[in-house]
Every structure is written in C-alpha cells, then in structure tokens.
C-alpha cells in the first residue's frame, strides 16, 4: 500500500473544476506566488486538443490536470446503432495513428461471441498489417516527439518514413488511414500481387533511416539533456495508475500482451520485448525506436511464413459470398442481401478482448443481446488511461519539460475522447 500512499501524498493532481480553473487562470497568488495556467487545447505540442491545467510556482509545475473531451463524439453510442459488420468503420476512427489495432480488437471480440475460428492466412495477414501499423505509429511518434523537443528536421523524416508504410496500406486496403480492413471473420481482401516486394522495400529502406535517427537524436548530447531524467515514473506507480505499453515497459517491467498473453500467432514468431530502466522520457523514446526494429523482425517472419488459403471464414452467414457466386446461386444472393441489410446475429453474451496496441493494452468489452447490433461496445483506450500518469510525471519538473512529458506519453486524442 506504500505506493498508493506515496501517490496520494504527492498531491500531483489539481482537483479543481473547469470553471474554477478558468476563474483563477493567470492570477498570481501573492502569498506563495502560485499561478494556474491553461496549456492548450490549441497548443502545437498537445497532439490535437488536449488541455492541461497546471499550477506553477515560477517555472516549476506543481499540480496539474489533463482536461479532455474536446473530441468526444459519442462513438460508443454510435456503435450501438451499427451492425456488427459495420462496427469496424466506426472503431477504426478512434486511434487514427494505429487504426488496424482497434479494428482487430473489435473483430476478435465479435469472433469470440460468434465462436468462429478464422483461417490461418487471415491471422497472419492481420499480424503483418498490425506490425506494419505499429511501425508507422511509432514513426509518427518519433516525428512529433522530435518536433516537440525542437528537432524540427525529425518531424519531416518521421512523416516521410511513415508515408512509405502508408503507401503499402493504400495498396492493400484502398485507404491510407481508417482502413476498415480487419473485419469479423477475417480481412476485407487478400494481399495484392507482389506484396512481398513492396514489404521488402520498406524493410530495406528503414534500417538505414533508423540509424540516421540514432545519429540525429539518440546519441546526441542536447537530446539526452532534454529527455534523460525527465518525467520519471516507477513500475509500481505505473501499474497502480493502470498505465501499459511503452510507459510501463520504460520502468523495466517487461509486460507486453503479445508475449505474456499471446493472441493471433505471436507465439510462433521470434521477437524481443524492449524495456527501459529509468522510466524517463528518454527510455520511452528509445523503446519506441527499438520496437520499430522488433516489428521489422516480425514482418520479416510474416514474409517467410505466410500460409496459403482463404483470407476470411467460408461461413456465408458471416462473410459475403464471392461476387461470381451471386450470379449462379440463389442462396448466395440471399446471404449477400441478408448480410448487408440486416446483418448477422451474434449470440447473446459478453466478452472482453485485448491486444497490444502501440500505446498499450487496447481492450474491447462487447455485449450482445442476440441481435445484429451490439447492446454495448466499450473500447478500453490505452491513451485515456495512460494520461493519468501525466500529473505524476510532470510534478516538480519545469514547464519546458512538460512538453517533453506530454509528447512521451504519445496520446492520440481521438482515442482518448472517443
């Protein structure tokens, strides 16, 4: 219980209401020179619309509170009005930097309620695409993290490398983002011809570029000064606050759902879990950089081990029949019509599934009442929970470091607010 008392006694969270924060903003208390300021919601380094209310004493951050909800569009409510087939179009818009993971966790939940087994090739395609997505998401992190800390060149490089991956996504799914590619029952389409050479090209380009990033940032004294020892959190604190992903791993705690509670075919591929040792901003940066290398290892193995066969279940109640069958078979036409008008029915029940997204544990709690639309669909968004570590990481640090800390959490506001 000592961690709990420690967290409580630290008084890192500014527990005042929104309107009170507005009234007291930018007024210096004459007694102790404390002042409350609002950072955001339109600050360039707040990654969208995050607002942080901070209590400052001089340049030191004392208490703070992340204020969210500016992007709340009621996506969980929307999900209750969409059929299980339409669901992925909605959830893919939550974490817009890693959309395939939300599609995956939703599809896994639906499949578990349906009690269907998806073909092996679909599993491997999902794994290939998710690891490529992890790479693109971490490259985006490197870009924004570099920009936030003053390395503006890095912003351009990160976006450039990410685009290489997104170009492949566009070829496979038709879209750069918001793919709706992973669906209950498998994936929307098979990989295109010559996909191997496209993936190989990405794998050929990246190692050199990652080494350039090492020169530009990892080994650079200014970069290290800005990040080392900044925003420190311990493993006990991270666990108590529910933080997962790179934040938990930066403390040296090797928790990665892909390894500890394997899903898809992660138990069949070889990769390492990257952990840090100090739980600071530098560790969180280094973990993400090296996770790109680990993802490349997995992608490499997907290239070699990709099985042949169908890319979605052959159960015509769940996946539509091939176009050509509709011309020949009345039954195929009926199935096609039923799936796209009424949707398929999912047995009553509830289930929680989870995957390791680039930001931590991404979960989906799905309740079905036996109809073709969910009774309740809840996404456990890692960014939403991870943001709770922010006041503890910023406490006692400098205002200039607050930017580094926010950036190192890598929050995606679409997922935080849903």
């Amino acid at each position, binding site marked *: 219980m000592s961690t*709990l008392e420690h*967290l409580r006694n630290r008084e890192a*969270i500014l*527990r005042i*209401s*929104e*309107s009170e924060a507005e009234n007291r903003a930018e007024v210096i208390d004459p007694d102790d020179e404390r002042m409350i300021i609002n950072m955001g919601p339109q600050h360039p380094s707040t990654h969208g619309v995050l607002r942080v209310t901070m209590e400052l004493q001089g340049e030191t951050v004392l208490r703070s509170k992340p204020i*969210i*909800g500016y992007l*709340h569009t*009621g996506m*969980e*409510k*929307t999900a209750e009005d969409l059929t299980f087939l339409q669901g992925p179009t909605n959830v893919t818009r939550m974490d817009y930097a890693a959309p395939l993971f939300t599609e995956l966790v939703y599809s896994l939940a639906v499949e*578990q*309620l*349906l*009690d*269907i087994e998806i073909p092996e090739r679909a599993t491997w395609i999902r794994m290939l695409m998710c690891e490529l997505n992890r790479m693109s998401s971490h490259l985006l992190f490197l870009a924004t993290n570099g920009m936030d800390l003053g390395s503006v060149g890095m912003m351009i490089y990160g976006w450039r490398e990410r685009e290489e991956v997104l170009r492949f996504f566009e070829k496979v799914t038709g879209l750069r983002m918001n793919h709706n590619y992973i669906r209950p029952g498998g994936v929307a389409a098979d990989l295109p011809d010559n996909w191997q050479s496209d993936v190989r090209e990405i794998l050929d380009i990246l190692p050199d570029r990652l080494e350039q990033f090492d020169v530009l940032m990892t080994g650079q004294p200014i970069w290290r000064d800005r990040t080392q020892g900044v925003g420190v959190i311990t493993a006990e604190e991270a*666990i*108590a*606050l*529910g*933080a*997962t992903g790179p934040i938990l791993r930066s403390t040296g*705690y090797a*928790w990665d759902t892909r390894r*500890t*509670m394997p899903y898809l075919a992660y138990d069949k591929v070889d990769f390492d879990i990257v952990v840090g040792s100090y739980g600071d901003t530098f560790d969180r940066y280094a973990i993400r950089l090296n996770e790109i290398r680990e993802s490349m290892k997995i992608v490499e193995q997907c290239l070699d081990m990709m099985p042949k066969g169908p890319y979605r279940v052959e*159960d015509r*109640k*769940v996946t539509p029949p091939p176009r050509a069958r509709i011309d020949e078979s009345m039954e195929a036409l009926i199935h096609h019509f*039923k799936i796209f008008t*009424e949707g*398929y*029915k*999912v*047995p*009553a*029940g*509830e*289930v*929680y599934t*989870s995957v390791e997204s680039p930001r931590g*544990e991404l*979960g989906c*709690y799905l*309740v079905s*009442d*036996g109809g073709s639309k969910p*009774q*309740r669909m*809840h996404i*456990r968004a890692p960014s*939403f*929970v991870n*943001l*709770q570590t922010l006041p503890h990481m910023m406490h006692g640090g400098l205002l200039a470091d607050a930017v580094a800390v926010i950036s190192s959490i890598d929050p995606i506001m679409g997922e935080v*607010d*849903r």
Partner: protein
Amino acid sequence: MSRVQTSEGTAEGNSDTAPDNAHTDTAYDVSVSNSNGQIVLHPEILLYESLIKNLAADGYQMCVDLCGVDYYKNLTRKLPNGVKAERFELVINFLDLLGKRRIRVRVQLPEDDPKVPSISMIYPGAEAMEREASDMFGFVFEGHPDPTPILLPEGWVGHPLRKDFSMGRIPVQFKAVEGR
C-alpha cells in the same frame, strides 16, 4: 463449429438467456460464472468494496477497465442463480501481471439509485474511468476524489450512453459565452 444464428433461428437464441442452473459456484464469497471462457464475479453492492479489496490482496494489481452497461428492459439475461438483474451494470476488468490472469466483476445497479463506493483509493487508475462511467450513465461513486465531468462539458444535462438518451433528437447544448 459455428454458432451463428440466422434470422429464422431466433428461438434458439432466447433459450440462451434463461438462467443457467449449472452456475452456482462461488469465488471470493460471491457468485461466479464463466462467460466465453472468462471468469466473471457477480457481487452484491454491499459486498462490492470488500471484494475489490480481496482481489487487490490476491494479486490483481491493475484495474484495466471500468465501464457501465445499460441493459434497459433486457432483464432476462443470463446470470448466476441468486443474482437479480437490474437495469444497469458496472463492469470492471482486473489483470494480474505476475500470474497472467484476468478476472471480471459485474455489479448490478438499480435504476433509481445507481450508487457504489469508489475504488479509486485502492486502484488510482480507476479514477478517470469512474468519471467516465459517471458522465455516461449517471452512476454515483461515493468517496470519489474528483467527481467532475471528464468527457462531457460542465453542466451537461443527461447521460448519453443510457438507452433512453436517443440519438439525433436532442439539441446540442452550447455554453453561453459571456461578453459576446
């Protein structure tokens, strides 16, 4: 083996929701059931806080997820014997990082008084999630250190994820901007 139901075969689906006599087991002194291979505990509200303390002592270090569910008029859902279905449910997922196990707690909350003790003193990570459930369903978490809205603006009327909060029929509530 596929259990997909066609639109013609709904009769089978209804029998699924009847109470199952096989589930009368208990764990941590509360009813336990198996939901698609996942362990679910069903405490009464009075036993809720002590159950959470027991779980924390038993190695469930992390409160992974906390959310509400509105079953509205669907009161015939499958629950263990002796658990009375209410309109609302509070669902919490716990994770044991060392033992690599998960457990879920489902608490039945009555429509007229959806009140439970807050667990954010035991699991500080539940704080934001409890605020969200309070926004979306109007649950009251007693002893919560910061019971302010989190996703909704201050002063918002209604709880959007309740089933009787219909979509598209309610005008957007704008806040008045003073001096303009």
